[in-house]
């Protein structure tokens, strides 16, 4: 089974290398080979993740039949520390690997259609494969060192993917922002790992967890280590205050957003905490911090999401909010519930994102006011989007209901004070997602008559890419007409229509999953998923959500849906009715919320501004005056001394001889005197 474990991350990595090397060769050859390779890249890449998925399923069934696959080899030694190269697949990791592999596969498949005709498709798929491979490695790693390597690989490849349209300043900036923001968390993780090595002398999961459960971390470290690890998790999982990168990351291609949000990058943080929960369990204080941050993030992001006008922005804040739910569950001592929500969230968020991508792909727009009435034009997309929305809102029996209800249950049991925040967040969740549904798919189609000249930045770029493609083809000797036939025609001038099967099939599959994904963890089925995970829990007593809470949750969700319908769905030309009214009612507050509480501006002004000021001070005062002054002073002093002593150099050999003789005489006199 060890070979299968290695194959899961290795195959996507191999595909990545193959794509890049082959792409290099093909672009050297130019013309037809380059085109063929570009078209083949997507299928190769998807094939790689399919292999990973099959392997992951094999692992899953092996684990379920009682096997415990693991691989262990010594990687290298550093002094007394032995760094192993070890993979393993216990319950949690098996579930994660299956989810990651499955979502990756679907996103790859979807990308084949979405990226069709893109100039740099080979690079895109290579990066996507790298990302998937890194994520799979992260999930399978059995020691902290390998985990950290994979962790950074995920960060690096996400940077590449987010700034894929690097010609666009916003995309480049977003990639940089994501990378730098998560690095802050990564630093915490790294220090945490150092602390772990220092306290336990081992990197191995098993050894470290055993030590932690036995209270071996010692005193303050027992709290500091989980908090440091959580810093890493907060970075990757976009928890307050490190959440700012996620909305901007929407600058990447939509499939990338889906991949990042649904199952991979943001899940890494939650997975990390769940994986190392044995360490967290040793420190109630750390758990309280985690729970507080989670709940706060959930509510804050939900309010922001309710005010956004860009589909992808709404979904981005929604992800942050849902991650807040998961983190709150972790803080409440129920990692199983968090993973369960992660599991269900993966499916329905992927559904929503791919649906949104489908809409953008078809219309070239992504601002809600410019869209509408698409349900008739794109029924399949609309249907699956609604399924995803219901799941997100927590309406039974969709997937989100089961997991969210469980989270509410554990939080109510451990941190009652936070329950209200989460309920409010639930309400807002239902509200903003159905606001999206009503504005985009129902009502008068403000976008129905629009041509392909929308202001969707992404599509603009795609159009540019196509133009460039045409130019290069023309330069290669083709006639203009032949090029026109070769160039992809996804955007007929005219009405938007349903996307092609490559995009719709994954969408439908995901929608089905969004409907059913709650069942493995549902209480009435005995919660097989949670027990399969085999995680340590700190929650007291039997987990189970009180009936009143279930009822309250459902009612809250329905209330949100109803408010959305009232605000946006009822009237035919509703448009931004409720938005306008809210904004008019409390312009000050609404603006603050819509701007994400100005966290970004705060960072820009306080952190970056002060840092820049400090750097400026150092450069102008300390460096220019102090250090440079010292260096220049030394140089000037040397020059002056040289000028002064130059007179001694008469250039006459006899003078030098005389000097030597004088020296000899003096030395002899000295020696004789000493004698």
């Amino acid at each position, binding site marked *: 089974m060890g070979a299968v474990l290695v194959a899961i991350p290795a195959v996507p990595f191999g595909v990545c290398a193959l794509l890049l090397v082959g792409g290099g060769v093909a672009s050297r050859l130019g013309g037809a080979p380059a085109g063929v390779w570009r078209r083949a890249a997507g299928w190769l890449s998807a094939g790689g993740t399919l292999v990973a998925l099959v392997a992951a399923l094999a692992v899953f069934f092996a684990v379920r039949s009682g096997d415990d696959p693991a691989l262990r080899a010594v990687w290298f030694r550093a002094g007394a520390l032995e760094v192993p190269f070890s993979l393993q697949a216990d319950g949690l990791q098996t579930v994660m690997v299956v989810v990651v592999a499955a979502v990756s596969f679907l996103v790859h498949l979807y990308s084949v259609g979405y990226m069709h005709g893109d100039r740099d498709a080979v690079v895109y798929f290579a990066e996507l494969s790298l990302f998937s491979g890194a994520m799979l490695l992260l999930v399978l790693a059995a020691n902290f060192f390998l985990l950290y390597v994979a962790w950074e690989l995920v960060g690096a490849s996400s940077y590449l993917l987010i700034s894929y349209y690097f010609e666009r300043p916003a995309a480049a900036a977003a990639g940089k922002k994501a990378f730098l923001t998560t690095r802050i968390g990564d630093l915490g993780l790294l220090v945490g790992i150092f602390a772990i090595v220092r306290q336990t002398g081992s990197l191995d999961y098993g050894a470290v967890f055993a030590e932690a459960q036995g209270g071996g971390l010692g005193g303050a470290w027992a709290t500091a280590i989980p908090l440091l690890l959580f810093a890493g998790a907060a970075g990757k999982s976009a928890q307050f205050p490190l959440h700012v990168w996620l909305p901007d990351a929407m600058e990447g291609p939509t499939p990338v957003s889906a991949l990042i949000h649904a199952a991979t990058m943001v899940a890494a943080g939650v997975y990390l905490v769940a994986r190392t929960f044995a360490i967290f369990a040793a420190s109630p204080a750390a758990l309280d911090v985690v729970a507080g941050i989670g709940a706060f993030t959930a509510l804050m992001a939900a309010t922001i999401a309710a005010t956004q006008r860009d589909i992808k922005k709404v979904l981005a804040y929604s992800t942050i909010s849902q991650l807040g739910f998961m983190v709150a569950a972790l803080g409440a001592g129920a990692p199983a519930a968090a993973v369960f929500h992660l599991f269900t969230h993966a499916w329905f968020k992927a559904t929503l994102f791919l649906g949104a991508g489908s809409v953008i792909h078809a219309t070239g727009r992504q601002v809600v006011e410019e869209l509408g009435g698409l349900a008739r034009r794109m029924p399949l997309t609309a249907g699956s989007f609604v399924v995803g929305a219901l799941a997100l809102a927590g309406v039974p029996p969709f997937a989100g209901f089961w997991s969210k209800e469980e989270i509410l249950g554990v939080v109510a049991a451990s941190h009652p004070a936070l329950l209200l925040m989460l309920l409010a967040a639930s309400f807002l969740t239902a509200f903003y997602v159905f606001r999206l549904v009503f504005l985009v798919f129902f009502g008068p189609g403000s976008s129905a008559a629009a041509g392909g000249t929308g202001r969707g930045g992404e599509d603009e770029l795609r159009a540019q890419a196509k133009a460039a493609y045409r130019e290069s083809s023309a330069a290669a000797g083709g006639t203009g007409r032949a090029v026109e036939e070769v160039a992809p025609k996804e955007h007929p001038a005219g009405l938007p229509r349903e996307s092609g099967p490559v995009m719709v099939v994954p969408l439908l599959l995901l929608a089905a999953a969004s409907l059913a994904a709650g069942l493995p963890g549902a209480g009435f089925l005995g919660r097989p998923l949670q027990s399969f995970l085999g995680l340590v829990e700190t929650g007291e007593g039997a987990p189970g959500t009180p009936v009143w809470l279930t009822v309250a949750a459902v009612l809250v969700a329905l209330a949100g849906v109803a408010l959305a319908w009232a605000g946006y769905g009822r009237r035919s030309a509703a448009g931004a009715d409720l938005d306008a009214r809210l904004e008019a009612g409390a312009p000050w507050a609404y603006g603050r919320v819509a701007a994400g509480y100005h966290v970004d501006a705060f960072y820009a002004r306080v952190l970056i501004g002060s840092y820049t000021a400090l750097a400026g001070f150092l450069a102008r005062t300390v460096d220019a005056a102090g250090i440079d002054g010292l260096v220049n002073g030394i140089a000037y002093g040397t020059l002056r001394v040289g000028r002064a002593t*130059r007179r001694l*150099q*008469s*250039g*006459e*050999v*006899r003078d030098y*001889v*005389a000097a030597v*003789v004088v020296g000899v005489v003096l030395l002899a006199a000295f020696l004789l005197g000493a004698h």
Partner: protein
Amino acid sequence: MTAVLVLSAVLFAIGLFGVLTRRNAITLLVSVEVMMNAANLNLVAFSRLYQPELMTGQVFAILGIGVAACEAAVGLALILTIYRRYGSTDVDRVRLLRE
């Protein structure tokens, strides 16, 4: 033995005086040769005094003579070059070492 040492000291001083005062490159060389001979004299004398059977001092005296020959050859080549360049063998005119 004392006579040898005194003679050698006197010769050395004479050569040194020449090196310090003479202006012409050839006479400089002459003075240096005087000094070297003074040293050779000492070498031979001490060889006889302490190691008459080993001849080490004489070996080095011969070595010194060889070095003197080399020095003369190279020095004179330099003098010729200097003469061709400056039209004189006075070292005072050769002040490239200064700046």
